[in-house]
């Protein structure tokens, strides 16, 4: 039973560029959430997708956008990258929107912006 998988593992980009991160949820899960974890800090909620729509959003600018596909996988897009966007990006999946099924996290994508 595959867990949450994220790609790529590491990524280096230059300021001003755009980046796309990908996430495949755990088998049987239909809800995907994205978190940003800066070095030495706890993760911060970016947004959540369910039924291909953004359902909830944290305090992040519009440069952060996402998408969910019919197979429940998801992408996180960040435009006009800033040095401060350097972080570990975690994807988490669960079953059922507003249900209380536990979150399952992937191993993250480490993004470095130079």
């Amino acid at each position, binding site marked *: 039973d595959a867990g949450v998988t994220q790609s790529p593992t590491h990524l280096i980009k230059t300021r001003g560029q755009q980046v796309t991160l990908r996430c495949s949820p755990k088998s049987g899960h239909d809800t995907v959430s994205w978190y940003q974890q800066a070095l030495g800090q*706890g993760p911060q*909620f970016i947004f*959540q997708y369910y039924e291909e729509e953004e359902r*909830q959003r944290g305090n992040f600018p519009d440069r952060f956008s996402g998408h969910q596909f019919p197979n429940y996988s998801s992408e996180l897009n960040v435009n006009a990258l800033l040095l401060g966007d350097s972080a*570990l990006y*975690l994807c988490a999946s669960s079953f059922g929107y507003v*249900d209380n*099924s*536990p*979150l399952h996290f992937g191993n993250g994508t480490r993004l470095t912006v130079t």
Partner: protein
Amino acid sequence: AQTVTQSQPEMSVQEAETVTLSCTYDTSESNYYLFWYKQPPSRQMILVIRQEAYKQQNATENRFSVNFQKAAKSFSLKISDSQLGDTAMYFCACSPQTSYDKVIFGPGTSLSVIP
């Protein structure tokens, strides 16, 4: 709004001993969940234990137990019989019942288990 505070940036414990990690939180929600997550060097966030705020009984999971003091908004984690594999970052977290996936994490406590 919700906030989670962990006042111990780093802790260490001898193998087989017991250690307690502290956490305080603040929320305006009447129904919410509290969590402890573990993040080893592999970076994957792993759920250690979960507590529903409406339940008075403290949650336990094998060697892990919590002391939930709702009035004080305190949620500490006790690890008994510490093992080398317990070495990791530990995050206290909270989410409202109506927005379960919108988890607010604390800054973390780095726990080292010493052989």
